[in-house]
């Protein structure tokens, strides 16, 4: 069902956990649907210096949370904003079609975090 990469990121998630010292957070999803993702960013010189996450969700949700941290770290906010669901899925060697819709929230979460950062909203 899942690619080896998804399994790897699910079993050994990168950069998991809330950042101790973050500048903004993007909260997406809803417990009613079974998937909630909080993406935390720390920004320095317009770049994502550090990124962390908290996720309740299926293996795909956890793996995409993990993957976005690898894709976004070090990127400028403008570059990071452009990361799409497809980029994440591709980097994970694909996701089951059903999971593209329901669990691939990380790109939205990051966008929301950046938006909050730009608007000076921390929580």
């Amino acid at each position, binding site marked *: 069902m899942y690619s080896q990469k998804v399994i790897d990121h*699910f*079993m050994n*998630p990168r950069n*998991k*956990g809330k950042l101790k010292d973050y500048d903004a957070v993007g*909260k997406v999803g*809803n*417990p*009613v*649907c*079974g*998937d*909630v*993702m*909080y993406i935390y960013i720390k920004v320095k010189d317009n770049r994502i210096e550090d990124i962390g996450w*908290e*996720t*309740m*969700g*299926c*293996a795909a*949700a*956890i793996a995409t949370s993990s993957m976005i941290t690898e894709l976004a770290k070090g990127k400028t906010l403008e570059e990071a904003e452009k990361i799409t669901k497809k980029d994440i899925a591709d980097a994970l060697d694909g996701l089951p079609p*059903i999971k593209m819709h*329901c*669990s691939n929230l990380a790109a939205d979460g990051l966008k929301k975090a950046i938006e909050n950062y730009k608007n000076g909203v921390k929580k």
Partner: protein
Amino acid sequence: MIYMDHSATTPVDKRVLEFMLPYFDKKYGNASSLHSMGQEAKKALEEAREKIAKVINADPSEIYFTSGGTESNNFAIKGIAFANKDKGKHIITTKIEHDCVLNTCKWLEKIGFEVTYLDVDRYGLIDSGVLEASLRDDTILVSIMHANNEIGTIQDMEEIGKIVGESNAYLHTDAVQSVTKIPIDVKKMNVDMLSISSHKIFGPKGVGCLYIRKGVKIDPLMHGGGHEGGLRSGTENIAGIAGFGEAMKIGEEERPRTMPRLEKLRDKIIDNVLKIDNTFLNGHPKKRLPINANFSFRFIEGESLVLLLDSRGIEASTGSACSSKSLEPSHVLLAIGLKPEDAHGSLRITLGKDNTEKDVDYLLKVLPEIVSELREMSPFKKDYGEFE
């Protein structure tokens, strides 16, 4: 691997497989054939029928072989609906039936039947007063499952049998999960039809049967060459049926020893898992299958839980949306009043005769670790905060 998903399916018992083997390539006749090979097949068929009838206190002529539980349930419900549509178009069932009952009912609604779906209480039990009140003159069928496949709750079929027995309706019960776990007696239950599936009782997949009490007016689901007294056509799956018969026999013979042992292990699981905080048991504390434990762990999602258990060598299942083809969380967990988020965080453990105390101890070591790993990753720790 430690397999704890016996309500999903079971391995074929070695003795059952041994019993089946000759029917694949040695005694491979078609039971309708006149020649020796055919007659030998027919003998195997009739022996299996007798074994099964004995377990449920039916007459062998009342056992109709099918391809499994799904077919048995489709057959019972559509068969009664079509054969009795001039008598009435009303059917009663419950909200916690297996999808093969619910979706059959929904299809019948589409083509002109009327279906009442009974509510259940927080333990998964129907209210017999409500059942009685729901029966109408034009009710042709009541279909209520014996034991639920997710939460293990056992209905009081004898009481239900009495109530429906006083109406004009036929009574069907889905006993796929209960047979060989608890005693079954079609006469005491006063049921007209009862569904069984072989692969849930250490028999092969792709076989099952429907008990149909003599005299019940029912249309076939499979029309054809007139097998099974004209009610279920199709060349009989002799190897499968022989295995099914043997599995029933063994399962029932060993029930008095196996089930108390598994029930004790199951209780050990429940007692210990409930020590994990923000965790609760789904289903009835007492009226439940001896092999079933079903929990909700708040703040985590079931697919992740099942996959992490799998990675540590334990196979179980969940009522999370992610595990279903419909993308909805378990309709059973919702029907007993769980919030969707708690249904997503459910775990079903169903034991089988090969499970040992050692298996259970390992589960009890690993499960709390995994739950806390997942909760560590989760944004929620004590409540769903702004989402509640």
